[in-house]
């Protein structure tokens, strides 16, 4: 066997793909040809190293954001919202909901707020409620008072899911298309919903292009209904590296309450819903 012929078959030889007769011929050549033998040995070593590299460390774990991206594409997302206690008073300071339902003097308000984290629905650590909050020029001031758990606001987010995916992601800046609430959200009495984004934390139903009416009751509200308005107003994901926030307000005249839900995607692996509930004791909501 010539050196040229050996070189043509060297890979198959190293990988053990030659039949016995060919293997023997090549092996005989390698015994006598130092150059071919050296090359064969090097190939064996290289292949061995390549395979070792494939088995070696240095490969990161599957990142949580992949699971989120995949779950965001699921048509049917199981209820995967759980609760954990939060002290979000500081966060809510400056959250200007003043204009939501108080055309003149600020009414006495009751706030029930929780932060919910999507974590496979396994955690539910209760809630913190605040009463006696007042609305001031700078936003909300709250005095925290823990209520017994499950006394609870009728506003419960069963899950905040995204059916068209790629939401809030720096790679695919599409907004979510679906928010799903439990029926206990008490949308029956709702008269309006509004959406807002990170950059417009303070908003009023009547002043928003996102304003829309929906036929309630429904346990699943499809934001696709917003159509072009929503698409046009989808915020620029690069505006805030921490992610998007979308506020959903439900004005419920029957119960005299305005509820605000915040969907937060700052955490790659979590969808955080946070809400406040504002009970109108002196004024009717305007929308």
């Amino acid at each position, binding site marked *: 066997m010539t050196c040229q012929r050996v070189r043509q078959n060297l890979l198959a030889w190293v990988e053990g793909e030659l039949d016995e007769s060919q293997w023997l011929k090549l092996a005989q050549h390698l015994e006598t040809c130092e150059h071919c033998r*050296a090359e064969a040995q090097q190939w064996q070593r290289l*292949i061995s*190293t390549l395979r070792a590299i*494939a088995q070696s460390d240095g*490969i990161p774990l*599957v990142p949580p954001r992949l699971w989120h*991206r*995949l779950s965001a594409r*699921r048509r049917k997302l199981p209820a995967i919202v759980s609760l954990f206690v939060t002290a979000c008073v500081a966060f809510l300071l400056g959250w200007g909901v003043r204009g939501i339902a108080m055309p003149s003097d600020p009414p006495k308000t009751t706030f029930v707020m929780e932060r919910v984290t999507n974590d496979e629905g396994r955690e539910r650590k209760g809630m913190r409620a605040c009463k006696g909050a007042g609305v001031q020029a700078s936003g909300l001031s709250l005095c925290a008072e823990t209520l017994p758990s499950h006394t609870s606001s009728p506003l419960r987010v069963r899950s905040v899911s995204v059916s068209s995916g790629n939401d809030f992601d720096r790679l695919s800046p599409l907004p979510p298309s679906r928010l799903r609430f439990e029926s206990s959200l008490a949308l029956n009495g709702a008269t309006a919903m509004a959406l807002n984004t990170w950059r417009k934390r303070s908003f009023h139903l009547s002043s928003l292009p996102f304003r829309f009416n929906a036929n309630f009751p429904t346990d699943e509200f499809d934001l696709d209904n917003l159509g072009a308005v929503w698409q046009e107003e989808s915020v620029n994901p690069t505006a805030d590296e921490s992610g998007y926030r979308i506020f959903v307000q439900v004005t419920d005249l029957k119960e005299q309450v305005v509820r605000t839900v915040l969907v937060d995607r700052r955490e790659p692996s979590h969808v955080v819903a946070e809400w406040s509930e504002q009970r109108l004791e002196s004024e009717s909501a305007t929308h």
Partner: protein
Amino acid sequence: MYEMELVRRAKSGDTSAFETLVHRYWAKAYRLAESIVGSTDAEDVVVEAFVQAWKSLQNFRQQSSFGTWFFRIVINQAKQWQRKAANLPTEPLEDEFRLSDEELSFRDIEAIACEWDWQRKVKIAVQRLPEHLRLPLVLRFWDELSYPEIAQVLGIKESTARMRVASALRQLAIVLAKLEALP
């Protein structure tokens, strides 16, 4: 569970089946993406590839293995990423490939092998291979594809795939020798 069954379930909307496929192919896809875009962007590329695969799963007719189909997506995503990226990946050092086979010095490479960072150097050398040689090599030894599968992924003949892997090994030896010569 057999792969085809996993795919069948995933296509019917069973996300846990797809998650199993993700775990099964994550490392291999990462190595493949890393060989194209480098380690900095490999994770992003693979994430995009899996999302794309999930979106396109209904189009997968199972005429090939899931891996073959998916690795094509990875390669496409990686190339798309390359096009978008301002900093293109390292191009082959032209002078390394002007060397003829006669200039191979396997003794030099043997010396490299003695170094503790041999594997690291091999990885660097793989990165410096031209893409048409690098991809068959990676698919063969990192992703453990057969030659017919490599041919299918890359859209080339099986004999071409074999030839390119052999050429890649030769070029790898040259690049490693070059790396050894660097200060």
